């Protein structure tokens, strides 16, 4: 990093609003992500209310009075809007800023020994473009015909005016996702280059913490695949606004038309890597935290990196498994099935690396570790149930059932949620200088862990029993009557799950003010972000540190009187 200019101008605007400090931007992403997490979560509660108590008025404690419907009940249109916006918000405006935006920004420069991102101004623009995209999405709630309701995938022709959804809600949806993509690209370019160019001396690729590896690989996927969905969204947007017919066919198209399936291909060419875009940071964080709280080196760290990289490559050639029921040729279906199942090999390898890291470790069950262990559990269930969805014969039965909903909530929602909570609990002291209340953290963890499993596992059971994922009222179907009680149970558990997140929010905010003041390195970790006093100044390091060993040197026999050693401290023959 060269050419550092000192400026004496300081104002709230430059230090907290339009800051170019990666740490501030990381916190901005974190707050925004938590806001949307709660907003998307609230919508999930409404969805669950409808599934358990179809067509009954929404109670006051679920803000029934503001739900747009007859006599306070959720109408079919509103129900469609709810699950559309729940999926959209959770994937693009909650998980993305929480993991990639917040921790990508906060951690990458600190952990690789850089003063900031390669392009700090671009970084700031990335956040504000992201913020703008969220505003556009929220503004659509005030449109006369409401928000988008074509599902989070927004498949045409349903998502087009000619296909059945009137109004501008879908167009706002498309525009906001496109803007979000622009913001993501800005961030991703920054992350990729920062890691390549700004690593401290001695910080070789295999000395980078695994959390940085996860974030870096995610950014590479973003750079490659976000433009793909951008192309699809541009076409969809002009179909919606200008009346072109790229994705309209049959009698809906006036002049020959195009093909709706083309959008599905474009969507999933991006959409499947998106799954890994969301989960790779969690894998990295889990790999690192298991090492810290087992006080052992991460088992097979290089192999874990190679496996994650292999998955990055494979993720780009498996999109067809989302489209088995679209009438693709059996040969193509089998090819996609084979490639998808192939992913289970590298996934299993690094999964067993996690278990091997735990084996005979000195396990410390602090809140970050509890959440990390939960990721292992939920990812195992999510991963194993993915095998059924990847298999053509099973998927044709399971497609679009609640089984799929349960599966991807295990892999994407539960894994990412626990990964995010682990990261927040672990790096909270670096972000805010205080510790989260450990008792509240543990209550939040156990409450979340128990209820999340009761919700999503039972969703898979109802799906296996035949419940379609987007039914408005299951009471209308005779064969689903035996599932009514189970749906009520899932809903009650979902409400408890939501209540425990309020507890987290309280702990998160309260600890910022009243939490115990943290020491510099409360977890006795090796990596560079723990070497500075709080608050860490803009610029992070007065002199760039020289790294002499790896990030996971825990319980090294050559280190006396401690079971950890900073990456800048030479040990034994390591050079």
């Amino acid at each position: 990093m060269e050419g550092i200019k000192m400026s004496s101008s300081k104002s709230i605007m430059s230090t907290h609003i339009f800051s170019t400090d990666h740490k501030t931007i990381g916190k901005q992403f974190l707050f925004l992500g938590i806001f949307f997490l709660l907003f998307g979560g609230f919508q999930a509660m409404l969805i669950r209310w409808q599934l358990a108590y179809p067509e009954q008025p929404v109670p006051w404690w679920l803000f029934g009075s503001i739900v747009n419907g007859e006599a306070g009940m959720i109408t079919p249109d509103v129900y469609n809007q709810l699950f559309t916006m729940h999926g959209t918000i959770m994937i693009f405006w909650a998980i993305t800023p929480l993991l990639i935006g917040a921790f990508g920004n906060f951690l990458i420069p600190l952990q690789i020994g850089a003063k900031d991102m390669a392009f700090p101004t671009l970084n700031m623009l990335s956040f504000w473009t992201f913020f703008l995209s969220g505003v556009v999405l929220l503004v659509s709630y005030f449109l006369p015909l409401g928000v988008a309701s074509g599902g989070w995938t927004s498949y045409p022709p349903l998502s087009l005016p000619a296909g059945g959804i009137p109004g501008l809600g879908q167009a706002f949806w498309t525009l906001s996702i496109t803007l979000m993509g622009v913001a993501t690209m800005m961030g991703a370019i920054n992350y990729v280059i920062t890691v390549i160019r700004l690593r401290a001396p001695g910080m070789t690729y295999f000395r980078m913490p695994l959390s940085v590896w996860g974030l870096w690989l995610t950014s590479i996927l973003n750079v490659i695949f976000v433009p793909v969905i951008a192309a699809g969204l541009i076409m969809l947007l002009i179909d919606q606004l200008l009346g072109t017919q790229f994705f309209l066919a049959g009698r809906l198209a006036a002049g020959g038309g195009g093909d709706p399936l083309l959008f599905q291909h474009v969507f999933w060419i991006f959409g499947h890597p998106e799954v890994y875009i969301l989960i790779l940071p969690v894998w990295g964080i889990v790999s690192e935290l298991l090492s810290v709280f087992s006080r052992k080196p991460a088992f097979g760290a290089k192999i874990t990196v190679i496996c994650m990289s292999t998955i990055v490559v494979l993720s780009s050639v498996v999109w067809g498994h989302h489209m088995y029921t679209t009438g693709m040729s059996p040969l193509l279906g089998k090819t996609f099935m084979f490639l998808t199942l192939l992913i289970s090999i590298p996934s299993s390898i690094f999964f067993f690396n996690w278990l091997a890291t735990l084996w005979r470790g000195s396990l410390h069950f602090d809140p970050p570790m509890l959440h990390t262990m939960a990721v292992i559990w939920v990812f195992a269930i999510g991963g194993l149930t993915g095998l059924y969805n990847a298999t053509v014969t099973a998927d044709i039965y399971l497609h679009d059932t609640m089984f799929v909903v349960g599966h991807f909530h295990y892999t994407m929602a539960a894994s990412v949620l626990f990964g995010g909570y682990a990261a927040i609990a672990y790096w909270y002291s670096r972000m805010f200088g205080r510790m989260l209340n450990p008792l509240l953290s543990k209550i939040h963890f156990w409450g979340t862990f128990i209820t999340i499993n009761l919700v999503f596992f039972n969703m898979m059971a109802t799906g296996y029993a035949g419940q379609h994922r987007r039914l408005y009222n299951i009471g209308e179907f005779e064969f689903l009557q035996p599932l009514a009680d189970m749906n009520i149970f899932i809903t009650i558990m979902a409400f408890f799950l939501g209540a425990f997140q309020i507890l987290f929010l309280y702990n998160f905010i309260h600890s910022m003010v009243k939490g115990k003041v943290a020491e510099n390195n409360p977890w006795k970790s090796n990596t560079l972000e723990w070497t500075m006093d709080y608050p860490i100044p803009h610029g992070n390091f007065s002199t760039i540190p020289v790294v002499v060993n790896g990030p996971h040197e825990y319980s090294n026999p050559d280190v006396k009187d401690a079971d950890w050693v900073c990456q800048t401290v030479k040990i034994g023959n390591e050079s």
Partner: protein
Amino acid sequence: MSPQVQSSDLLQIECDYETSKMGVLISFGGIIMLFVTFLATFSAMVAKELAYIKIDGATIFVAGVTSIILIMSSVMFHKSHSLWKKNKEATISNYFYVSIIFGIVFLIGQINLWKMIVNAGFTSHSNVLAGMVYLIGGVHAVHLIAGLSVLGWLWYQLIQSRQVKPVRYQLIGWFWHFLTALWCIIFIFFVIIL
């Protein structure tokens, strides 16, 4: 342990030459993926015989001429950059102006080209392939307008005799050359496919 920075002053961090180059190259990668998706979608539409479009010789001729104009614009920019470096980064050459003018002429040529295709009866509403041609040309034009804006900024800096970092001049040139190369590929693709 690393010594700590005690000052909370703002630090404006400037990236170095190689970092900037890498940033531009990775951005090109993103733009390439955008157009690859458009062209792949176009190919799929042709393969599925969703529509039929025939481009006549006159249209191809006009497109060829505008393409040559864009290539000339790129060459002129390269010459202006070489002269700027040769003259110790002090002067702005006529090549620079010609480069901008050729870029604008190309855009006008594109509009004429679209009009010719519309006049031939291929509208974006009636024919998805024509719609794709307009879309791809339009998205490229948007990038070109962005390129012209950057050239305008550079021109303003140079006439104000402000110091322009050599890397900025070079990278603006890269972007301009990239857009030229991209258009040539798109044009050849259309000629071959259609």
